[in-house]
């Protein structure tokens, strides 16, 4: 039984460790302790999806997960999407298709979409809508986000094909 804990996790391939209050949520650990402010804090009860990150490859709400629950885990955040100075195909597609306006919800959308495409590179429209249904955007009206997902899927499939041929 502890009120503080020393925890360690790999975030986008980099190890972070710190001694924290056990009540610290994962999103606050990422933002405050790791300095990774790309993950946003919205509703803080697991509904809006702005804080969605990947926990061992699974998209979860980091506002309703304790940092201690992620001790020893692999975490991916929006900062890890682009390998270098080039945008990830999901980011490129959001830009081209106007999948964002204010951008507050975008990191969560991108991580949910990334998980979906990782599981299934060729999802149906229904599957895409099921995943997007778990994220709230108050600007775009979702149609442009949907188009961005379709565009990202095409970009990633084309990249895989040329990689396989190359």
């Amino acid at each position, binding site marked *: 039984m502890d009120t503080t804990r020393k925890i360690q996790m790999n975030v986008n391939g980099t190890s972070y460790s710190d001694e924290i209050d*056990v009540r610290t949520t994962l999103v606050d650990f990422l933002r405050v302790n790791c300095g990774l402010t790309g993950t946003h804090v919205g509703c803080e009860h697991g509904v809006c999806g702005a804080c969605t990150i990947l926990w061992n490859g699974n998209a979860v709400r980091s506002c309703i997960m304790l940092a201690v629950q992620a001790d020893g885990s692999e975490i991916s955040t929006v900062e890890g999407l682009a390998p270098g100075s080039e945008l990830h195909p999901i980011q490129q597609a959001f830009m081209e298709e106007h999948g964002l306006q204010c951008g507050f919800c975008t990191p969560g959308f991108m991580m949910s979409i990334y998980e979906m495409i990782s599981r299934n590179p060729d999802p149906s429209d229904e599957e895409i809508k099921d995943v997007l249904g*778990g994220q709230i955007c108050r600007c775009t009206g979702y149609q442009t986000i949907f188009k961005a997902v379709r565009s990202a899927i095409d970009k990633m499939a084309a990249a895989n094909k040329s990689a396989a041929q190359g």
Partner: protein
Amino acid sequence: MKPPSFEYADPKSLDDAVRLLEEHEFEAKILSGGQSLMPLLNMRLARPELLIDLAKIPDLDHVREEAGTLVVGGMARQRALELSPIVRERFPLVYDATMHIAHPQNRNQGTVGGSIAHADPAAELPALVMVTDAEIVATGPDGARTIAADEFFVTYLTTSMEGAEILTEVRIPALGPSTGHSLQELARRHGDFALAGAMATVTLAGGGTIESGRLVLFGVGATPIRARDAEQLLAGEKPSDALFEAVAAKAAAELDEPLSDVHASAEYRRSLAGVMAKRALAEATARAAV
């Protein structure tokens, strides 16, 4: 919107978890997937002194079939049900119910045992275990005991588990032969808690008459509600719109006053429960006939 202070324990065995729970029964809460508990903590509607996280206990997250029964560990993630080929092929009602729980991003973290133990009357898994006559295994200081789903839900967010018991397994029987199923619910948005919902199974006898049916309404009372009296009207009857209408109307009429809140009035919920029940009975019957 941040959790209050608490102590945290992540016992490595079920025995240790039960012992901790026994020592701190009135001050402790079990943390499984956290999809209901963490919002309650963030909003400070719950202020436990101790959180007992079950994540480090081995062998609590299985999903397997044993002699026609789906056996699911309390800590199995809801997403594990969704992604299980066994569930998809052999337990279609379990699959349907799972796909109606919130969103993939919640199902990745939310657990089967957590949802059932939390006992939200509008949630899908409590209604599922009622309509399938499932069994729930609770493990406490005196070992494990099996509780019939019918005996499990007491009232809002309250079950018949003792204070130092932990939900460790759920056993859901497969639907029998010539049996169809249906889940119907209305929510403002897919993934929201249902304003009202119904789950039904219908078994056909030879000659196209109904042998038996089961009907559970959810989101319209303090627990999921098995409409036993209304179900009786089905046995021996030929399926018809009028029959389903009569059964659904009886089930809706016999509800205690449903919840009235900002989302829907009690009157609307009762009316909606009847509509959902009728649709569920019709679809379950149509599927049984295939």
